[in-house]
């Protein structure tokens, strides 16, 4: 489906992407995770064909983005990070314009524009000029135009940023349903939010591919994997928690007194014994949570360890 091989980009003398390779299949949702300035956006731009790589190739459905740019462009939907802005067009005319450039006419064009607008809930703002919309709407306009032509590869750059929480949920649901039809590559700084929908996680740091695994695998690398966070109204006996079998350590939350995170040793499960201890001591617990592992920490740590 999509094959990226030895992609390298130099800006001046600095390499921003070096020797980046990965394949992606249909019905995969790739999360591209990394810190700010790790090279996520520039990588997506290179895949979309708007920036030419210094060396290496991007192959989309058998078309190289450099030698067969137009064919490759047709198979790609790209949502830029800042959303879409235009000095004079309204949302409707912008979507129409892009649908025309994508080669749609007449009834089909109208139905596709209508469908994309309703999927992103843009129907109420269709007549407004794009530049007057708030950033969240601009991002949704950008998403709407990206899925207009049912692309084979969908590139999303921070799709949830700046959106209200319930909108973020909707975007996640949308991405999940789109994954059934196409390859989705979604770049984000906030990995936690996307952990549920990504089938694969690529970690990028200083332009290098640091990890290419599944999300659970990445979570397993976190020191908070299998950790238990509990908040109590009464005083907690930390010593009793610490001597439980398999407990590696206890972190007290500085900002919310009474809340602690109990870390588990690798390969151990501590949740049942903590539950038993709570029942035994009759602690008044206000929240108890088993953590799946903190992805943001893992990505941050991987980026720190990476050679610069």
């Amino acid at each position, binding site marked *: 489906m999509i094959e990226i091989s030895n992609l390298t980009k130099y800006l001046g003398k600095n390499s921003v992407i070096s020797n980046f390779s990965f394949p992606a299949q249909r019905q995969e949702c790739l999360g591209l995770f990394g810190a700010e300035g790790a090279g996520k956006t520039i990588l997506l731009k290179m895949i979309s064909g708007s920036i030419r790589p210094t060396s290496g190739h991007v192959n989309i459905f058998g078309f190289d983005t450099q030698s067969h740019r137009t064919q490759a*462009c047709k198979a790609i939907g790209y949502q*830029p990070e800042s959303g*879409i*802005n235009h000095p004079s067009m309204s949302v409707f005319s912008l979507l129409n314009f892009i649908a025309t450039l994508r080669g749609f006419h007449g009834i089909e064009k109208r139905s596709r524009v209508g469908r994309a607008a309703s999927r992103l809930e843009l129907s109420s703002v269709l007549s407004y000029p794009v530049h007057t919309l708030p950033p969240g709407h601009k991002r949704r306009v950008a998403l709407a135009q990206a899925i207009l032509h049912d692309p084979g590869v969908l590139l999303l750059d921070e799709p949830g940023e700046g959106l209200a929480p319930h909108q973020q949920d909707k975007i996640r649901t949308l991405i999940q349903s789109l994954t059934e039809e196409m390859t989705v590559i979604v770049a984000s700084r906030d990995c936690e939010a996307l952990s549920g929908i990504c089938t694969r996680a690529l970690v990028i740091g200083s332009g290098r591919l640091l990890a290419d695994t599944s999300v659970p695998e990445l979570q397993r690398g976190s020191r908070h994997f299998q950790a238990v966070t509990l908040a109590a109204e009464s005083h907690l006996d930390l010593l009793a928690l610490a001597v439980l079998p398999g407990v590696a350590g206890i972190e007290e939350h500085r900002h919310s007194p009474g809340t602690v995170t109990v870390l588990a040793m690798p390969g151990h499960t501590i949740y049942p014994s903590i539950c038993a201890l709570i029942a035994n001591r009759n602690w008044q617990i206000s929240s108890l949570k088993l953590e799946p592992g903190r992805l943001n920490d893992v990505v941050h740590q991987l980026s720190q360890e990476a050679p610069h």
Partner: protein
Amino acid sequence: MNLLPVFKRQLASYLSAPATYLSLAAFLVLSATLGLHTSQLLERSSSDLQGIFEWHPWLYMLLIPALSTQLWAEEHATGFGDFMKTLPVTPAELVLGKFLAAWVMVGVALLLTFPFVMVVNVLGTADNVLIASQYLGSWLLAGNYLSVGCFICALTHQRLAIFLLTLSLLLMASGLSSVLDALEHQAPIWIAESLISLSPYLRFGMIDHGVITLKESLYFLSMIIAFLATTTVILNYKSG
């Protein structure tokens, strides 16, 4: 082919921008006042509009940069220009579509000078073929200047820089004739002649005086194609 959507889009953005109407109005007012004041068109009851058209090379120096700043600058400022690179549009289609839209706008400006044609026809016997050829010549000259504007737009995205660079490049081209006068006695005759043949201002003068010839039209068309091709090459190069 995506030429038509780009052309329509650009035409729509010209028609929705107040700056377009302002520059067209300024062009028309200046063209009328300067033409009528200097040539005594109405008093002489001349059969053509030479008095008006001879001002056009100079008036275009204001109108063309004003139109060409609207070609790319705004879209670039909002990041839309970069986004367009991810759509299946080739730089050639983009350049040609935008250029044609701007050229049509100049055509509209020229058509709006039609009251002069009526006046000349009413007041005396007008040579309408000559007038038509003058219109065509003026439009070709404007196309030539616009292609220079497109070329500058590919180099820079700053409005003021586009305006000033286009203006100075056009002034240089027009000033070529006075340089040639000075060169006439020093330089070998073939250099002067080949330079003369490159000046759009002198070419336009030839059309202005008489009926348009194939040679002159081809000169303007080939200049347009040359500048637009250069623009496309620059855009292709820049996307790297």
